[in-house]
């Protein structure tokens, strides 16, 4: 049925267009429009550029106003404040350039539309102008590069020693998170040790630091502390994206990456600030990884440091809740009774 509609509709449209085409052509012939170099439509088109300019920029101004709540998610990390500021400064600069060039570009058509008795200005080059608009953008861009460079090198500098470490592993199609546990060391992993139970491939045989590691279902991080994300993937590329913290880093199989930042608003504070009582920080995947790519969601909670410590202490080690699995490993030097 769909195709019948399509065919009938198609024929109708083509017939209509053919009719319009013939009529337009006949009008042209009747008016002998070829005798004049341009017709009235020249003025119409020129005028439409101005209309487009007014409506377009009006629309931008209007929508930027009413939607500002939606496209300005508040930054909740220290470096995010810097990048946000840089973003808006740069946006302001490029918007001015965009606006001014469009004033010229969209008013020129009307101002200089064809007139039979006028001749265009012979102006093939001007060294002054050309140097000016090579140098001015170059200077502006240099300033932007330098300010960008400063922020970028701060963000990518090595993480301070005093930090909280969270390991995040991407897989099709969810995230796995691991904390160091009481010993403060995240145990070594080996991709060959991965199986249905031990999803992160913790290498219990070769690294005892694994025994107190825990793998919660949501990320908790303390406000005001340095947080280092140790990122990896076990099957294909993923990318850790925490929009509110301005954090993004690819997760690459076989090549661990990292990103550190300082969260500066607790979830509770954010709920008050946004007026959304059920607000939560979120982690999403931004590197296409298969059919479930759009649904790799993980919850992040920023606590006050004291709350965080309490939560951290209350977590049960993975090895404790999976004693049966540890038993199957037949590790000689491990006493299951010691795990608690």
């Amino acid at each position, binding site marked *: 049925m769909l195709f019948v509609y399509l065919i009938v509709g198609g024929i109708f*449209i*083509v017939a209509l*267009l053919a009719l319009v085409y013939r009529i*337009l*052509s006949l009008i042209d012939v009747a008016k002998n429009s*070829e005798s004049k170099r*341009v017709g009235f*439509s020249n003025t*119409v088109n020129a005028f439409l550029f101005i209309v*487009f300019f007014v409506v377009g920029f009006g629309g931008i101004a209007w*929508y930027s106003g009413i*939607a500002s709540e*939606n496209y300005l*998610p508040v930054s909740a990390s220290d470096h995010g404040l810097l990048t946000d500021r840089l973003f808006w400064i*740069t946006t302001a600069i*490029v918007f001015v*350039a*965009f606006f001014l060039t469009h004033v*010229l*570009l*969209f008013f*020129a058509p009307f101002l*200089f*539309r*064809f007139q039979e008795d*006028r001749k*265009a*200005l*012979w*102006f093939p080059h001007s060294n002054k102008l050309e140097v000016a*608009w090579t140098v001015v953008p170059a200077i502006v*861009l240099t300033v*932007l*590069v330098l300010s*960008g*460079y400063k922020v*970028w090198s701060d963000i*990518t*500098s090595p993480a301070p020693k005093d930090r909280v470490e969270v390991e995040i592993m991407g897989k099709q199609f969810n995230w796995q998170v691991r904390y160091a546990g009481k010993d403060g060391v995240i145990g070594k992993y080996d*991709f060959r040790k991965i199986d*249905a139970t031990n999803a992160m491939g913790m290498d219990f045989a070769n690294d005892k630091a694994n025994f107190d590691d825990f793998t919660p279902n949501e990320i908790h991080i303390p406000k005001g502390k340095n947080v280092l994300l140790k990122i990896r993937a*076990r*099957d294909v*590329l993923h*990318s850790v*994206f925490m929009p509110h913290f301005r954090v*993004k880093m*690819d997760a*690459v199989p*076989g*090549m661990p990456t990292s990103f550190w930042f300082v969260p500066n608003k607790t979830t509770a504070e954010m709920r008050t600030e946004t007026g959304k009582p059920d607000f939560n920080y*979120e982690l*999403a995947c*931004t590197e*296409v990884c*298969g059919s*479930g*790519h*759009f649904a790799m*969601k993980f919850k992040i909670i920023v606590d006050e440091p004291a709350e965080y410590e309490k939560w951290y202490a209350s977590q049960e080690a993975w090895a404790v809740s999976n004693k049966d699995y540890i038993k199957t490993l037949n590790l000689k030097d491990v006493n299951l009774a010691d795990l608690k």
Partner: protein
Amino acid sequence: MATVDIQAHHHVDNHGDHHEEHHEHHDTFVTKYIFSIDHKMIAKQFLVTGLLWAFVGGTMSGLFRLQLGFPNASLEWLRPLLGGWLTDQGKLDQEFYLALVTMHGTIMVFFVLTAGLSGTFSNFLIPLQVGARDMASGFMNMLSYWFFFASGVLMFTSIFIETGPASGGWVIYPPLSALPQAMSGSGLGMTMWLMSMALFIVSSLLGGINYITTIINLRTNGMSFTKMPLTIWAFFITAIIGVLSFPVLLAAALLLIFDRSFGTSFYLSEIYIGGEALSNVGGSPILFQHLFWFLGHPEVYIVLLPALGITSEIIATNSRKPIFGYRAMIGSMLGIMVLSFIVWAHHMFVTGMNPFLGSVFMFLTLIIAVPSAVKAFNYITTLWRGNLVFTPAMLFSIGLVSLFISGGVTGIILGNSALDIQLHDTYYVVAHFHLVMGSASFFGMMAGIYHWFPKMYGRMMNDKLGYVHFWITFVGVYAVFFPMHYIGIAGFPRRYYSWTNFDFSNSFVDLNMFISIAAFVTLFGQLIFAFNFFYSMFKGRLAPANPWRSNTLEWTTDRFPGHGNWVGEIPTVYRWPYDYSKPNSAEDFIPQTVPFSETPESNFDYENEMIALEKEYK
């Protein structure tokens, strides 16, 4: 139909009415329309194939815009078209959504904007504008088209296979694209994608080598490099970029093929998938990205430069004013060419690459904005105090400049590695490249079609329909892509089947609906063009010899130029192509074939000195 053949002031004899006498040999249907070695026919083959691909790619974007704008709507009515790709609930299958996105990207970037734009106009204009009988090798040129055609057939077939076409995004990052376990599209569909792309690379290289050689070796008398139209400069530089960058894509694809089918570990390391740990160790998935973007970034300019070249020519012609800063335009294109090879890693700021390397690439990336800015300013200055004639081609050219600016300025933001952290792989990027590369190049292609249609088919397209087409498209692409900036700043990731899972992206429902509706209107608006194009081919008014009163060489040929382009001798060139509205000249244009000795009233001093040299040209 009324015909307007010879304009009184036209000084090149018009052979339009007698064109049939000049056919020296009569081609069969096969040698004339299919296995043709005439560059003009090959150009038309590229054009029509490219337009058909644009239709396919456009339809795909319509389908995924349905999903994005109306996530709850039932698409049951599309079942005759999509069949098994719809779920039982009448929604798009999630993997099929990715397949659509991937195919849309591949088709538009390679088949439409590389082959359809550069292939068409390089083929058509290079011999006509430099004054050559044909390309340096007509046979290689024919091969170039048929490799492209074969590549297209393969890609098209892959859409209909059981496991679906490649679906890992047009950038086909491994390991996703290397492991059939990861998604069904990485099976046979990916193999076909790679084979198709290998054929496409061969086609591009055959074409590119031919373009460069023709421009170097076959220019007519007097056509020095400094008298070449900017179109030819643009095609020349595009071809050089292609020859230097496509082999790298070939290398990347080759290694991927080995990883997929022969068990090597170039890109694979420490992978556990489908319940088993793979044996591959020591490879680097990031290596692929380096190789891919070493082509991928120059590819952006392969797509864009021809459009800019076409625009230069059209804006100068219809402003009745010389292009401002001819040498600066060439210089900036050369600058872009060099820089385009050393900015690729700005696509990879968040892959965990060395931060210092990131800063270097940020610096280089922002440098490339300077020649681009120079070009934009030069276009505006060319319009300023001109005498503007708004042909559809001119409208599309002005539209291109606007899109080039609006899409270009956001490149300054994305090229800044600190800002790219948040914006990478969001809709901000989608907005950026669809404006600056997709739409701008598409506008260049449309401008070129409207402008050179009379030379291609000897008939005029209807300009009123052209105006309607332009305004729908211009308003349309802005309505589609401008709002995506807002969505991107909010952090919506690309290639998401739906956003409703996340609180941070669960806004903008209305805006997405608006974008989708705008996209449908824009897509349907293209039907006006399609009609105008095909109808005018047969029923359009016969074209005058030089409908736009242009200076370049192609307008000195017959209305229906035969194979060999010029009857008799190829004209000699005496001046640059931008003598529009020269002071003291009676006409507002002086074609390149007019010697200075014939225009004593308008010559500048140094041009008078050239008169003595002109005799030697003969």
